[in-house]
């Protein structure tokens, strides 16, 4: 017991509001040893962030109350400490790295001021000493020009740079424990890989304990020594990294692991998913909290809450785990790969649905004569019945491209042909008419439906616009039918959006998009805001609908695993241009553009060996207001030459259906 750095015993956290008491974390136990990295994994609402904030006692600022339990750091119980003592622990003994680096810094102070302030406070350094140490730290976390960075304000740094600065701040006072709450979630894959590599290095170098909180099992696999899986405010499984990934000991963990599309499942028709959603705090099921979503649940699970029991050095809260792991289907490799489907599409006689011809979208900015070239000369075709994936880092212009194709943004130049007819310079009323055929699914399931409308009204909106003269009865039937198609209970049609979970709202958005039988749907990051298990449900639904209704999708996403699973062809975008486009498997197995190759290498993978991989791509995407000359990617490209900075490469077809924009397309 004595050699534990942090011991959490029976921690229980409640949220009190004016009208209710909600239990967010119930009686959890765990320990962290010195220089150990442990990881709390779970979906949103599982209580992992609440746990981390309770350890810092920050939860009290969010109406949370620690009602039971102890949190022992060294030999002191943090739960009982006064605020005066606490402020000496926060930052000094326990430091925190937040999810959203752009909001975690105070915008009115420079990075240097914020670093120096912290070190002066906790290490009693003089201003000059603190400043020098600050520069060293920024150098250590890999920021170029640390002296300049010290004088810069948070808004002058990119997300990845800020996260590095945040890490510098966290390690500045040599804390015993660093709590990293989703440290890479807000970042692009390439930057995520950089930050993970940095954390790994620091972990070796400083021997600090890290409590990593993430929803992403692949991130956990890269860093964690031990993993705790949380579900609905409880720890359901505890195991070492190797144990957990080789054989999960809880049905929930098993479900999470299977929800991540891996190489074997890529071409499968359906992704395995966990049915249902995590229960809300107000509606916790009795017995095992996972039983409503568990395929193996029995009577006992419905009635009695399983305790966390020990199994050879690991723990699991499941009544039947001993029998379950004996079952042959527990770790079954999924159905054989269906490959011929992909080939079939390629050989098909293909009809063009959408043709995008040198499309441009520039935004003026205040600085004179400058323009943000969000979409810069993009041409491609989308065939009937296929799914085109569009990937790239944030800032690459993929969302703008999608919206410009749908004429939700007026293109600066270029043309979009839908079924052979231009839709760019249509009159407003004619365009409104065309919208019947092209619909959109939005990223944010919370913001994209009007909170003041009932589900019925939301789904009826497109029907009213495009099917004039539809009778009330027909309308009612159609809505019921649509709700059924997307897997929602038709009886819920008079409810309001806030009564639904994220996944359910996304289904509402989909019902609305398919209400008037469109032929083309733009899915703009349609699953990015959802939890992994729910993500798989929605992807499956989209694929089912495509088969049933013959839909064509343009699927914008940043999760390459998912795009690889859904898309027939994939376009890679960088700084407003498509740099490579090829059939999905070809692109992923044999990328020709260095950027594509780097993106694929940065894809988060389950890494069981803890070996630091080579960082695939340095730096971050430049500002589209000021793109590099010649090839836009040259500033980050390992193969760039003099030639690349002078001349922009053409977008050429190097193989059938495979086009690349690079002077030295990889062999």
């Amino acid at each position, binding site marked *: 017991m004595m050699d534990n750095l942090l011991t959490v015993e029976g921690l229980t956290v409640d949220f009190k509001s*004016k*009208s*209710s*008491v*909600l*239990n967010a974390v119930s009686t959890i136990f765990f320990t962290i040893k010195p220089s150990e990295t442990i990881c709390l994994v779970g979906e949103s609402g599982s209580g992992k962030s609440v746990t981390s904030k309770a350890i810092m006692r920050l939860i009290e600022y969010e109406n949370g109350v620690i009602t039971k339990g102890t949190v022992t750091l060294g030999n002191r119980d943090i739960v009982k400490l006064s605020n005066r003592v606490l402020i000496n622990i926060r930052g000094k003994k326990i430091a925190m790295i937040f999810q959203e680096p752009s909001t975690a810094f105070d915008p009115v102070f420079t990075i240097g001021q914020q670093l120096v302030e912290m070190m002066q406070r906790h290490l009693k350094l003089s201003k000059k000493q603190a400043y020098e140490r600050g520069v060293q730290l920024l150098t250590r976390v890999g920021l170029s020009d640390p002296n300049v960075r010290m004088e810069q304000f948070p808004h002058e740094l990119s997300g990845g740079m800020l996260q590095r600065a945040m890490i510098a701040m966290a390690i500045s006072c040599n804390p015993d424990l660093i709590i990293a709450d989703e440290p890479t979630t807000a970042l692009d894959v390439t930057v995520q890989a950089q930050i993970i590599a940095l954390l790994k290095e620091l972990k070796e170098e400083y021997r600090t304990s890290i409590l990593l909180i993430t929803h992403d099992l692949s991130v956990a696999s890269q860093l964690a020594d031990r993993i705790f899986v949380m579900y609905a405010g409880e720890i359901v499984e505890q195991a070492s990294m190797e144990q957990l990934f080789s054989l999960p000991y809880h049905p929930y963990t098993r479900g999470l692991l299977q929800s991540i599309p891996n190489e074997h499942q890529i071409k499968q028709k359906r992704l395995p*998913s966990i*049915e*249902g*959603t995590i*229960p809300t705090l*107000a*509606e*916790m*099921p*009795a017995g095992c909290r996972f*039983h*409503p*979503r568990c395929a193996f649940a029995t009577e006992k699970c*419905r009635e009695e809450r399983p305790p966390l029991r020990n199994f050879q050095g690991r723990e699991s809260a499941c009544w039947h785990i001993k029998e379950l792991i004996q079952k042959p289907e527990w770790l079954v490799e999924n159905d054989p790969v269906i490959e011929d489907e992909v080939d079939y599409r390629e050989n098909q006689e293909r009809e063009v649905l959408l043709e995008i011809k040198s499309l441009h979208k520039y935004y003026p900015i205040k600085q004179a004569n400058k323009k943000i070239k969000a979409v810069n000369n993009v041409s491609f075709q989308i065939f009937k019945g296929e799914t085109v994936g569009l990937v790239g880092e944030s800032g690459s212009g993929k969302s703008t491209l999608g919206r410009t194709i749908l004429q*939700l943004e007026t293109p600066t130049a270029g043309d979009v042909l839908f079924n052979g007819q231009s839709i760019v310079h249509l009159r407003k009323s004619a*365009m*409104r*008419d*065309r*919208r*019947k055929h092209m*619909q*959109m699914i*939005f*990223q*944010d399931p919370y*913001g*994209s*439906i*009007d*909170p*003041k409308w009932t589900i019925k009204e939301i789904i009826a*909106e*497109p029907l009213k*616009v*495009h099917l004039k003269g539809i009778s009330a009865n027909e309308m009612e039937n159609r809505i019921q039918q649509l709700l*059924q*198609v997307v*897997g*929602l*209970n038709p009886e819920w049609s008079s409810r*309001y*959006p*806030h009564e639904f*979970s994220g*996944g*359910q709202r996304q289904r509402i*958005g989909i019902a*609305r998009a398919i209400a*008037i039988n469109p032929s083309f749907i733009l899915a703009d990051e349609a699953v990015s805001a959802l939890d992994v298990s729910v993500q798989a*449900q929605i992807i*499956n*639904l989209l694929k*089912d609908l495509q088969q049933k209704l013959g839909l064509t999708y343009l699927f914008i996403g940043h999760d390459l695993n998912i795009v690889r699973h859904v898309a027939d062809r994939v376009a890679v975008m960088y700084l407003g241009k498509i740099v490579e486009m090829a059939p999905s498997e070809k692109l992923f197995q044999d990328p020709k553009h260095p950027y594509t190759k780097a993106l694929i290498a940065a894809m988060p993978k389950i890494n069981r060996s803890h070996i630091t991989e080579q960082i695939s791509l340095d730096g971050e995407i430049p500002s589209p207001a000021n793109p590099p000359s010649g090839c836009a990617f040259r500033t980050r490209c390992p193969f760039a030459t003099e030639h690349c900075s002078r001349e922009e490469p053409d977008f050429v077809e190097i193989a059938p259906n495979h086009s690349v924009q690079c002077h030295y397309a990889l062999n």
Partner: protein
Amino acid sequence: MQKLETIKTKSVSKLKLKRFSKGILHLEKMMLAAAIFIIAFFIICAIVPHWVAMYSPTKMFPTAILQPPSFKHLFGTDYFGRDVFSLVVYGSKTSLLLGISAVIVGGFIGALIGTLAGYIEGIVDMILMRMIEIIQTIPSVLLALAIAAVLGSSFTNLVIAISVSAIPTYARVMRGQILSIKNRPYILASKSIGMRNSVIFLKHVLPNAYSPLLVMASNGLGMAILTGAGLSFLGLGVVSEIPDWGFLLSQGRNYIAAGWWISTFPGLAIALFVLAVNILGDSLRDQLDPKKRLS
């Protein structure tokens, strides 16, 4: 097809929660009932004062000048020997009418300006908002005073004076609301299905924008009555033999040492009415928000 995302289990915590929140809901409903009762009472006072008041407001009791509250004179009598209770009851008509019409006129014009500025943006926004700023630079009571002084004191002019001084706040809030709501994703979602802009504006933007105005209006009612009172005090109020609450309040100030009741009760009437309207306004806002709607 996927199974539905429901969890059909009885849960213990939900029951407990219900019992707890029931108590709060009960209290809220009680307060709402009290507020409605108070407002109804004042409206009755304004329409049919003789049903409520014991005496005519002009009737003087020369033998009972500056009498403290008693059973005969519930709120006491003033320096002319008039019954303060009757004065308050009769005075409610002018005060209520003044407050309500000023809020409606000011709120409507303010909301309209704010909506135009926020929705059209560009040059329209700039011109309208600069105008609003000019109005805002002058203290509202001073502005009302100036308008009342120029137009002369009649009921309509008083309403104009008070509502003009209230326009800037409504306009600013509404503009902010419109600006933020028109960039919400659900507006783009409606555009993407081919809705006309005018329909989107009426059905999505406006309904989501106006609820803060309700709260502002219920607060503004109190301010309007007080501004009216202030103008009355300066002799720019409605000239009538029946004084309104503001006039009563300001008159009583001179006698505060000899008869605290003369200004206290009109003041309490204002406070009570404003409080009741605020409670009603809050509850109205909650009713309009599906998330907070009481079941």
